[in-house]
């Protein structure tokens, strides 16, 4: 357990990476005038004033070091690391051959209309794998990357939850 009373640099990785400083459990504003911001907290909202605009946001989810923020109806997901651990991770990723977990998850709750692949097939990125019906629409679940289907965990007609693993790929 690291105590965070002291100064610390953080990296928040979302669509982009943001380097932010904190002291005594408070995010520190930048020293430069044009990059300065203020942060206020109400019961369930944050108000950040930045570049002459007010942004009102709320925390949709915070689990360990993953945080989802909602602003203006948009969601932003971040992984929060200290600068040291971020660099360590980067280094590890560089040295290791990338082996990303490429299981196919259900993006939304629904019902499987059809499985379009079979175990053992080689799949190219973008190939349709499963048809999932949600709110009366047929949604194609596409392969996020090349790989081989190692196991199919669902069958036609199954009801699935959001983020349920549908297909295991290697």
């Amino acid at each position, binding site marked *: 357990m690291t*105590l965070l009373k002291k100064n610390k640099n953080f990296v928040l990785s979302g669509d982009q990476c*943001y380097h932010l400083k904190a002291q005594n459990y408070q995010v520190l504003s930048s020293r430069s005038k044009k990059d300065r911001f203020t942060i206020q907290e109400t019961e369930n909202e944050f108000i950040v004033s930045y570049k002459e605009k007010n942004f009102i946001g709320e925390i949709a989810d*915070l689990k360990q070091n993953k*945080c989802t923020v909602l602003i203006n109806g948009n969601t932003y997901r971040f992984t*929060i690391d200290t600068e040291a651990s971020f660099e360590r991770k980067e280094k590890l990723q560089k040295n290791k051959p990338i082996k990303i977990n490429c299981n196919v998850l259900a*993006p939304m709750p629904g019902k499987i209309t059809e499985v379009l692949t079979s175990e053992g097939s080689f799949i190219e990125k973008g190939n349709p794998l499963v048809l999932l*019906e949600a709110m009366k629409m047929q*949604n194609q679940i596409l392969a996020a990357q090349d790989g081989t289907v190692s196991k199919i965990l669902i069958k036609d007609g199954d009801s699935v939850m959001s983020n349920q693993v549908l297909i295991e790929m290697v």
Partner: protein
Amino acid sequence: MIKSILIANRGEIAIRIARTATNMGIMVYCIQTNREANALYLEYADEIITLEENPNGSIFLNAEELIRIAKLHHIEAIHPGYGFLSESPYLASRCKDEGILFIGPSEKAIYTMGNKGMARNIAQKSGIPVLTGSTSNITNFYDAKAWVDQIGYPVIMKAVAGGGGKGMRIVRKADELELMYKLVRNEAKSAFNDDSLLIEKYIENPKHIEIQVLADRYGNAIHLFERECSIQRKHQKLMEEAPSIALTDEMRTKMGEMALFLCRKINYHTLGTVEFLLDEDNKFYFLEMNTRVQVEHPVTEAITGIDLIEQQIKTAAGEKLELQQNDIQKKAWAIELRINAEDVQADFAPNPGIIDKMEFPECSFLRVDTGFESGKLIPQSFDSLITKLIITGENRQEAIEHAKAVIENTVIKGVKTTIPFFKQVLNHPDFINGTYNTSFISKKLNKPFFQEKEEEKTAAIMALQAYLNEKQKIESNLTQEEDSAWAKKMRIKLF
């Protein structure tokens, strides 16, 4: 006039119908299902009929069950709304058999216009230009392939029984054909319980313009101008306006007349919509006819001041149409925004859930047709439309400004909605100048949602602060606890 009506629908349209029916002094019956037992629409009913949902399909798709309920409770009429059985000739014919008034046209008109092949033939005979396409129902892949070979790519595949934009896909290349065929067939089966298809030549970048018609049983028919519905994704309309900036008065009159030719040709009565595609050379083609009330009917109501549901019920009940073509005037410009429970950042994926908070501004130029309110659950088993915002202005520019103000002051929490999308569209030059067409979302929007500059960075600041708050809570608890000897030693080492 009828004294009781069964609304065979749910959500905002059930409420919309209930409002007018109540104003007309008609007793309103709604159906409560266990998929949506606390739905808002039930609060608008005079009588609620509770049914166990059959796991094999929705009650709203079960004509026999609807007839049984209507007879059991001595209800005089059934209003099907849109979607579900609204374009089912079977329900219309069963109603007729049992002496129940179906709020819609005749079984024959529904059947003819519901079959897109037949509809095209009749439209052509009425003098309306049509696109080349298959002339019989396609029920297997080999027929589909044969037609496509004859018509040539790109083509559009549609569920013959389709409507509401479901069961429709464009095919541009031979290697996509089989998969697209499957997708459309499955959607057709699940949404309309009929998997036969139709294939037509696809025109690139058309505008979608539709004419609202209203007719009685005695041959009187009028049109209530057009609606433009070119803001679509996956062939589903998201935003509509009336009138359309693309039409000259001459074109408006011509399309209106064509729509009425078609109505007269099939002895159409009650409310209907004749849909057209307008190509880049301002030539129009028959698309289809919808024989029901449409989701976007309020924009027409907003510009003409006419209650279309009232007219629909009256003409269905056999009253003579009192309105004449000259009575119909354009008094305003109106825009409808469909608030869907969808994640625009994830390609409009459905986002069902509980609405924590839902608030709209109160102003004279806003009409809210909602099926939900704060605290209500949006079920996964129905479509994603939750609310329609209908905004008017004296002219198009004012309507757009009003729409922006409404969106700015609308709060919906708990589920993601199409609001960030509307912010983006309302500020886009192609929408503002009116040159947009149905490929607007895929071709013109670099991202389908509005984002303030630096929005992600401020989100990062909030995320870190929330994280630090959480850490502080945990760590202050830790230090308060009796430290073990080992922890004490470690703490000394660390600091």
